């Protein structure tokens, strides 16, 4: 199965969720800013990455995990992805997860300053604080997603 975590820029909340899914971040405690920065793609994207489905890794069940920045398309994007997969007869192979409901203002402002304006020294610490604030909500989202994938595996088998 292909699991796609998507958010506005594909640089913070979706990357954090994907890293949690893949076990790149601990789930039982808040990560440090250094641990967050060590996650591939975290606060490290540019304009050309918008719309690209980027591979993050395989989980223990061989599900491929991706991240995607979809700008302001909102939750419609989940339906766009699921609908297109349905059209191809591959609906059961894709799970798109919107991480935007877990994004707080600190992440939005920090992300804007770091990625859009390019003032990384100012934006990155704000994003770090925001991500830590949203961290356990993202853990919860990832756990729900993992349960969904396990359900589908059981249905498929």
């Amino acid at each position, binding site marked *: 199965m292909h699991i796609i975590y998507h958010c506005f820029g594909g640089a913070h909340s979706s990357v954090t969720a994907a890293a949690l899914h893949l076990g790149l971040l601990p789930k039982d405690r808040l990560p440090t800013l250094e641990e967050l920065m060590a996650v591939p793609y975290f606060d490290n994207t540019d304009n050309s990455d918008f719309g*690209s489905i980027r591979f993050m890794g395989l989980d223990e069940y061989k599900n491929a995990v991706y991240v*995607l920045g979809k700008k302001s398309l909102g939750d*419609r994007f989940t339906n*766009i992805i699921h*609908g*297109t997969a349905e059209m191809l007869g591959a609906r059961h192979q894709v799970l798109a997860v919107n991480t935007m409901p877990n994004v707080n203002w600190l992440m939005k402002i920090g992300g804007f300053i770091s990625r859009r304006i390019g003032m990384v020294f100012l934006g990155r610490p704000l994003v770090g604080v925001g991500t830590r604030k949203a961290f356990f909500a993202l853990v919860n989202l990832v756990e729900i997603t993992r349960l969904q994938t396990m359900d589908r595996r059981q249905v498929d088998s």
Partner: protein
Amino acid sequence: MNIMFISNTGVHHALIAANIFLGRLHNPNFRYIKGFCDVAHDKSGFPIYIGEDNQSRKVYTLGVGKDVLMAKKTLEDLRDILGFTERELVIEPVSVPGESLIKFCSRWPKILGGAHLNALVSTYILRRQFHVIQKTVEDLQGRLKEMH
């Protein structure tokens, strides 16, 4: 094969392109196009099935908001990830001058005459841009011929 016309909405110029492709529309008379300007149909984000041509190619439209080329990139990435090629799904962006105005009018509240305004403005713009949409469809048909 599936063909998906994408634009900022799935019920305006993408719908007209789909109908031209299916041979249902030869002149800019949109009155009898099923679902034209029906924004409620477009809200969910799921592709809208329009019909099938004589070569069993299924035609869809999809509204993807203002960043049509970004959405094209995503959908092509998704197609590749799922192991399909352009032979199974072609994604064709449709763009016309004035499409932002169409999008704006399609968001106008119904209670303030939104449905009427949407139909009026969209019809006016798209009648004038009909040749642009026709050209997009002809180019696609040429590419599809080369593909086979």
